[in-house]
């Protein structure tokens, strides 16, 4: 029999340890909190994500599902044990060389699962790799580079050499990969002072309710370790935050009314054991539920209750782009295609939940936190705390995935307020259900669209009406409502356009930023209708798109003339041979009568404006040179796994004319770096990359003026540096007028993708067999990183198409909310088109969001090719596909 006080002894990575922990404590917690082995990550505490995978006596298990008592006397191996004497293991080297780690949060779990496999089977095939790694979720990579890395080790290949010096165009290995591979990287939950208190929010179980908080004295009496319970009254400044000056409507802690399930109402702060012991039902909150407004249609229904007093119709914002006379044009058209489309809430499902800690330093507060936007966080926290921005310092942790979801505040104001009042460090780590319930989502969209074309297959008109469910608070709702109309035509020249959008409040999670800002939803509509128009006119779908593709000289729906770098036709040209082969192969397969199976191939295109819509979004960079000739790039461009640390280094190296290994990086700390804006809108390569280039060019010019002077002999102009170059770039755009006319973006990414799928008509299931992706990126600063973005975007697009649907209260975990696993992502062929953007750094544009946008409609178009059935609501889950097949008489 074990008592709580007995020490539990086991071996970790060859070292004998004994811990005094309660025996039921999760082994993952003991490894992280007691032994400091934070390389073992916690993504869900439920065995759903595999981030905590370790080996126990050689076999992979989830450390979050194992009582520490069961480790007694056994051999535990964690990621920290892989590298020996500072040398990466062959598997780690392979991950490095293949670019198999992006954000790196799943990497320890992937490595341990793969180690388990390779110990049992020295030469596994791909199927064995998929089976062995199937229990670890990755949200960044699309898995293919991980599979390649494991197979390369299995094949006994010498690890590929890792490029550490390359400039623009080189496959430079990720400059920040090593700590991700060894487990040394500090994510939001991985670093905290020993004396930190723990904070946990009490959240609303209701979508809409009024509430009162009762007497807290009994709670304090029962839990002496409870230091303080914070409420709305403790927010020092305005208890309202939000992205836009006009949209500051979200309370840090709700004040008597909640507007969505998961909204924070109180914050409990105390020692960790106490906070863990308090159940929500122990806290005296009395709820008076209200009838919730669910769905955008309910939000604008006559007589609907107002969510916010300032909005009488629950419409947060309207967007509009209008040009020409679409109604008249349509009346003269040879073909018209019309459709109504629906999409769902989609969860970002980064594997790292929100986490961080804060402390008060004099009259300042410092926050270590996982974030995509340190400077906006600084300003927002200062706002709710009634401080000046320079009284807040944001020190970004490594970020275990963001995808837009870490552009909004989460733990930041809670821990800042608590640390401020208590004058002690305060730490907070969200649970997975808390993360999913409280964080923003992709906007569900209801879109009615109509396109027309003439007899020759030239588009004439587009009419697009989109309602976006923006949930309880403004968040990034205005961005979606403004970006979508600009992109509503798809990447095609359409002379007559009317595109309108509404962002509508409901009692559902705030919809915010998610990779694409509404454009993926719009693409489902326009790409389906392109296929239908092509079919109506008897034109091949790919050729129809080619005929209408925006190109240099085209005028967009906002009246912008594209001056350069519009490579959609080149993308389609690159796809054409694969399109013909794959279409023919699918049609041949279907003629063989393969039972219930049908194959199909679909194509879809996209365009995407890089950077903010018609708004200034500058980046500033500095690069210094020391007496020893080493360079330090001060980059505020936050790398959330997508690779901007590497890209900025390559651009600076190229502009300086030095090897990349000569450049050291200081990133993202608001006290140390200049504002490089947020990591969103696919803007870092284009905008911050330009700032890095300009800073490096500035420094290079300064050094050139010095001639052959010995750097070591120069005086330091600031500590450690003899010269500093500075660069600033803000993309040239103009405001849009009332009809949405103007220059919303300085440049656009373009892409076309093919999806080859197999449909089981008996069950309605879809297996994606292959994706071919052609992307015009202007210039691939790092082809490996670009491929990684494309793979990862495709995986998210596949999830959007087939399985992802967040339902508040129902899918607040990673087993009811499904994201693609390693077995769901097919081989991906990437074709990089480099139609250089003259404004871009060395010609480069962005890739982060473009990668995702065409995938879902390509799959839906492939479904139609396979079966003749159209599904206009995503995700196209098996039951929805089956229902559509039955209705069409295709299913048995």
């Amino acid at each position, binding site marked *: *029999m074990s008592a709580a006080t007995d020490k539990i002894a086991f071996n970790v990575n060859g070292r004998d340890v004994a811990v005094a922990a309660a025996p039921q404590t999760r082994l993952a917690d003991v490894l992280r909190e007691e032994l400091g082995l934070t390389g073992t990550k916690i993504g869900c505490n*439920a065995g759903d994500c595999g981030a905590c995978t370790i080996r126990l006596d050689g076999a*992979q298990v*989830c450390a979050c599902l194992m009582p520490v008592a069961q480790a007694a006397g056994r051999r535990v191996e964690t990621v920290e044990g892989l590298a020996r004497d500072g040398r990466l293991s062959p598997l780690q080297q392979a991950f490095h060389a293949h670019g198999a780690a992006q954000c790196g949060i799943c990497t320890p779990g992937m490595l341990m699962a793969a180690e388990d496999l390779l110990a049992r089977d020295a030469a596994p095939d791909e199927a064995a790799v998929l089976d062995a790694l199937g229990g670890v979720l990755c949200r960044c990579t699309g898995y293919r580079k991980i599979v390649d890395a494991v197979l390369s080790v299995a094949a006994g290949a010498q690890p590929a050499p890792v490029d550490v010096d390359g400039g623009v165009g080189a496959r430079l290995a990720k400059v920040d990969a090593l700590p991700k591979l060894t487990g040394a990287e500090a994510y939001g939950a991985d670093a905290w002072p020993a004396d930190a208190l723990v904070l946990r929010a009490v959240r609303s179980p209701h979508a809409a309710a009024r509430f009162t908080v009762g007497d807290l004295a009994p709670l304090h009496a029962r839990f002496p370790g409870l230091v303080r319970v914070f409420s709305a009254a403790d927010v020092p400044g305005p208890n309202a935050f939000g992205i836009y000056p006009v949209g500051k409507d979200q309370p840090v802690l709700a004040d008597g009314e909640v507007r969505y399930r998961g909204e924070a109402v109180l914050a409990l702060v105390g020692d960790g054991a106490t906070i863990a012991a308090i159940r929500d039902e122990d806290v005296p909150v009395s709820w008076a539920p209200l009838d919730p407004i669910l769905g955008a249609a309910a939000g604008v229904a006559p007589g609907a209750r107002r969510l916010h007093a300032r909005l009488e119709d629950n419409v947060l914002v309207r967007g509009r782009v209008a040009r020409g006379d679409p109604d008249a044009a349509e009346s003269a058209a040879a073909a018209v295609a019309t459709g109504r489309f629906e999409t769902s809430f989609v969860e970002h499902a980064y594997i790292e939940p929100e986490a961080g800690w804060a402390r008060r330093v004099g009259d300042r507060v410092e926050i270590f936190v996982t974030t995509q936007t340190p400077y906006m966080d600084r300003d927002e926290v200062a706002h709710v705390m009634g401080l000046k921005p320079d009284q807040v310092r944001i020190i970004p942790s490594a970020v275990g995935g963001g995808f837009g979801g870490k552009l909004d505040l989460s733990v930041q104001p809670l821990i800042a307020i608590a640390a401020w009042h208590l004058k002690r460090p305060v730490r907070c780590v969200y649970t997975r259900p808390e993360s999913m319930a409280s964080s923003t989502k992709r906007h569900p969209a209801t879109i009615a669209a109509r396109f027309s074309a003439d007899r020759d297959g030239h588009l004439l008109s587009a009419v697009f009406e989109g309602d976006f469910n923006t949930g309880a608070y403004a968040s990034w709702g205005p961005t979606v409502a403004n970006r979508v109309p600009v992109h509503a035509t798809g990447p095609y020249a359409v002379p007559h356009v009317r595109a309108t959008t509404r962002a509508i409040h409901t009692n559902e999670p705030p919809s915010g930023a998610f990779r694409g800002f509404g454009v993926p939803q719009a693409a489902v509509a326009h790409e389906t209708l392109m296929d239908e128009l092509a079919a109506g006119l008897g034109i091949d779908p790919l050729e129809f798109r080619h005929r209408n593709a925006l190109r240099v000289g085209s005028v967009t729906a906002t009246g912008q003339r594209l001056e350069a770098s519009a490579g959609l036709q080149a993308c389609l040209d690159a796809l054409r041979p694969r399109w013909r082969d794959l279409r023919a192969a699918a049609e041949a397969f279907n003629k063989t009568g393969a039972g219930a199976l049908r194959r199909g191939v679909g194509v879809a295109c996209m365009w995407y404006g890089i950077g903010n819509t018609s708004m200034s979004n500058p980046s500033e960079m500095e690069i210094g040179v020391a007496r020893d000739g080493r360079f330090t790039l001060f980059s505020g461009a936050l790398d959330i796994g997508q690779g901007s640390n590497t890209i900025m280094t390559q651009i600076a190296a190229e502009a300086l004319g030095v090897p990349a290994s000569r450049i050291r990086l200081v990133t993202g700390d608001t006290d140390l770096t200049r504002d490089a804006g947020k990591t969103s809108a696919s803007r870092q390569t284009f905008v911050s990359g330009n700032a890095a280039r300009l800073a490096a060019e500035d420094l290079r010019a300064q050094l050139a003026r010095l001639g052959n002077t010995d750097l070591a002999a120069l005086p330091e102009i600031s500590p450690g540096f003899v010269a500093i170059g500075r660069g600033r770039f803000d993309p040239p755009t103009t405001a849009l007028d009332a009809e949405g006319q103007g220059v919303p973006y300085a440049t656009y990414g373009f892409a076309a993708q093919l999806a080859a799928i197999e449909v089981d008509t008996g069950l309605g299931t879809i297996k994606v067999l292959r994706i071919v992706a052609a992307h015009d990126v202007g210039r691939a600063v790092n082809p490996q990183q670009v491929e990684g973005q494309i793979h990862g975007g495709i995986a998210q697009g596949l999830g959007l198409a087939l399985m992802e649907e967040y339902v508040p209260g129902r899918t607040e*975990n990673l087993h009811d909310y499904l994201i693609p696993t390693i077995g*769901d992502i097919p081989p991906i062929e990437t074709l990089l088109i480099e139609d250089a953007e003259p404004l871009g750094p060395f010609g480069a544009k962005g890739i982060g969001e473009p990668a995702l946008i065409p995938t879902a409609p390509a799959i839906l178009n492939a479904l139609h090719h396979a079966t003749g059935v159209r599904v206009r609501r995503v995700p196209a889950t098996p*039951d929805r596909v*089956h229902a559509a097949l039955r209705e069409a008489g295709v299913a048995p």
Partner: protein
Amino acid sequence: MASYLRPRELDEALRALRIAPRVVLAGGTDYYPARVGKPLDDEILDISAIDALLRIEEDEAGWRIPARCTWSALIAASLPPLFDGLKAAAREVGGAQIQNAGTLCGNVCNASPAADGVPNLLALDARVELSRVGSVREVPIAEFVLGNRRTAREADELVTALRVPRPGRPARGAFAKLGARRYLVISIVMAAAVIETEGDAVASARIAVGACGPVARRLPHLEARLAGHRLGMPAPAIEAVDLEPLTPIDDVRGSATYRRDAAATVLARLVEGATR
């Protein structure tokens, strides 16, 4: 303060349960997910140190799968084709991490409507061995799983094993699972079959469907129609009456209508494959 017992001997475990009810923990793969963000303050009986509950045993009467047998141990065990369905299910439970820790007995005790083990155990005609101080009883699996998260286990009992009887004739098992992604997926529908053969015909069939009601159910009408079916001949079509025991619901994984249709398709393919 909650207590945590981790005895080495079965007797000690049973004595503890006689004194007071405890949450029984083996692999932890259901215990911890049910307590995300909640205190771990249960009175726990951890059976993972009881060596007597580890190894699969075989005798004339059949097989005994003890309480600590994991999915991985089952996959690795040398077992006849009768167990092919159960092994197929084992490969589909969670990921390798879950298979290495989770147990079949735990799957049964957790009594999820979507438990991948249960339809197979119904098809195998398995019995649940329940031990308490001084006595052991066996309950047919169909009488053990009573509803969603409800079983016939009394508070002072421990499920010590599953017992699978040895069929009197050659037998083969099969399993099929339908989910919305490749790995780590909770079944929308699943079906298991055990076919006993005599010569080139089906002598008897036991078929069960899971995730189509609070508990997995046998399909007696379909089983009866399969008796005498010639192997290799086209399998009989699934009829509505075959599915009468099923009571599927609408949930996030699929509609009731879809579940019923999909169950018919899954069954038709399963039967076709198992009677080849």
